[in-house]
């Protein structure tokens, strides 16, 4: 076979190989060598994520990136940046889980192995240059998440969320797969480069492609949790163990948006066909995501709706990508990437505070639990306040800068209407984020102060890291823009 350069191909997926190898070794070690000492499992998982991150960063610096495996994998800057975001998410989640699992009585080594495997799935999605690799990555990510959602074996809620997630997720993947089959039937290829060449110059898709694009949007929209494909989100986020929710909220969204950005960048010639669809979905997602969040009384559920709303802001960036102005196009992608980073720090931080507070007999999640928190546990309460302000988009936090970048990109590409909707709903959203802050700081606690939370140092470290990142990149956004600007 010509053109098969195995060592080069393997070098391109080295971070993935490291993680896959680590997952196998850790799984075997966990059941054979160091039974019952999960500390080693957790530590090795964290170490493998950090090694993979180091490899990716090295690649970003050296800039030597080609496609591998017959163009089915492409490590372009977009893929590398989203991969970094994914590995950050995974590392932070491993730290969060460390003591939480022990306290909640589900301290199994499989947790970390599944977490690593799911992050490789999302990484595969991010660097897929081929629809079938995209599908395989999506499935690796989803399968691990289905199991993680049901990880608490004695809680019916957790089991139920896992079943719901699984049935709806499998249903959505079938749609995605049918979309892939239709696109294959319409263009004769599954490779993004070939598809782009094939449809160059065309303005309207043929019927088969049209069905294909629509079904692809359904499948990816489900993973990204946008309205009207969002019904699973609040249930699964509420039912899953909180440490899993934190991870799921980050990784699934990054993977899905990496794929959406790449797929619709490839399908750019047909923008007249898909832009109206995404436009409507974006408006629905932003408006209803925020409205439904206002009525919630459970923090996890509220954050679930808020994560739906954030997916809406990201879709604004996807729509803004469509413009003849090259600068505005890059600006939109950059804005989306910056927002993804902001989103993971804020969301993992907010869920992380709940993880940190949860103890052996109490899972923190309702509004009653956090009422008057500032008096009982000042440190987590103030950290939570940072995340709420950032999620609400109040300066000088990362959430504000992210929203601002997407807003500007939307204006530059001529989507003024969308930009206005986004600004209006963001203002409305501040209400429910501030409600949480108000409840924590100014309302009387409904129960007596309890002991210091037992979830220990690693979780606190992870949450603090998120808080510091939220503030630093909020005050000095250039640090992050230097990284996201690599896509130019």
């Amino acid at each position, binding site marked *: 076979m010509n053109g098969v350069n195995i060592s080069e191909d393997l070098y391109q997926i080295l971070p993935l190989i490291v993680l896959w190898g680590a997952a196998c070794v850790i799984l075997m070690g966990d059941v054979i060598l160091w039974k019952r000492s999960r500390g080693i499992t957790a530590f090795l998982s964290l170490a493998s994520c950090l090694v993979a991150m180091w490899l990716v960063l090295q690649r970003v610096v050296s800039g030597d990136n080609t496609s591998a495996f017959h163009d089915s994998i492409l490590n372009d800057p977009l893929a590398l940046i989203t991969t970094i975001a994914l590995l950050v998410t995974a590392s932070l989640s491993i730290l969060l889980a460390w003591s939480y699992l022990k306290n909640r009585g589900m301290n199994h080594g499989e947790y970390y192995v599944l977490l690593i495997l799911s992050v490789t799935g999302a990484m595969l999605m991010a660097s897929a240059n081929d629809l079938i690799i995209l599908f395989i990555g999506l499935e690796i990510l989803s*399968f691990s998440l289905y199991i993680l959602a049901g990880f608490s074996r*004695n809680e*019916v809620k957790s089991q139920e969320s896992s079943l719901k997630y699984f049935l709806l997720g499998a*249903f959505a993947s079938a749609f995605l797969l049918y979309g892939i089959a239709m696109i294959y039937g319409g263009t004769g290829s599954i490779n993004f480069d070939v598809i782009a060449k094939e449809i160059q110059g065309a303005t309207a898709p043929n019927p088969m492609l049209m069905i294909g694009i629509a079904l692809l949007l359904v499948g990816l929209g489900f993973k990204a949790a946008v309205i009207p494909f969002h019904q699973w989100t609040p249930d699964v986020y509420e039912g899953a163990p909180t440490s899993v929710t934190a991870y799921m909220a980050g990784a699934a969204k990054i993977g899905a948006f990496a794929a959406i950005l790449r797929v619709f960048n490839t399908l750019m010639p047909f923008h007249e066909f898909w832009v109206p669809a995404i436009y409507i979905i974006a408006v629905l997602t932003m408006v209803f995501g925020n409205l439904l969040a206002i009525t919630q009384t459970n923090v996890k559920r509220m954050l679930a709706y808020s994560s739906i709303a954030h997916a809406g802001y990201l879709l604004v960036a996807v729509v803004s990508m469509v413009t003849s102005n090259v600068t505005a196009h890059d600006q939109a992608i950059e804005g989306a990437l910056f927002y993804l980073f902001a989103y993971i720090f804020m969301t993992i931080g907010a869920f992380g505070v709940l993880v940190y507070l949860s103890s052996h007999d109490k899972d923190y999640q309702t509004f009653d639990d956090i009422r008057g928190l500032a008096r009982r546990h000042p440190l987590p309460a103030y950290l939570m306040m940072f995340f709420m302000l950032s999620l609400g988009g109040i300066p000088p936090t990362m959430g504000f800068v992210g929203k601002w970048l997407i807003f500007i990109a939307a204006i530059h590409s001529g989507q003024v209407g969308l930009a206005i909707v986004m600004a209006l709903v963001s203002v409305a959203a501040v209400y429910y984020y501030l409600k949480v802050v108000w409840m924590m700081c100014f309302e009387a606690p409904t129960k007596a102060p309890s002991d210091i939370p037992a979830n220990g140092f690693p979780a606190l470290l992870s949450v603090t890291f998120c808080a510091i990142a939220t503030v630093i990149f909020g005050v000095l956004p250039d640090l992050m823009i230097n990284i996201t600007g690599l896509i130019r």
Partner: protein
Amino acid sequence: MPAVPTSYYLGLSGVLFTIGMIGVLIKRNPIVIFMCIELMLNAVNLSFIASGRHFGHMAGQMMVIFVMAIAAAEVAIGLGIIVAIFRTKETINIDEINLLKY
């Protein structure tokens, strides 16, 4: 004997996919829902093979093998989840699995 045109296969695959989809929407037993999802995946497989044959390359068939592997993994995980929920709840009727709602 004239070959069967590709559009027939695609039509059949569309019909099978729709049957599977309707099954998912109206059935109440997770195992049956799950079988309907498998039907949808196999309908997609048919259209992959038909398109592959139409274009005369192997890619379509290769994809079917990957989809089959993924479907098998899905079966393993799905059955595992259903068994787990049955152990804690003693029922697998979708209408009785309703702790989580707005």
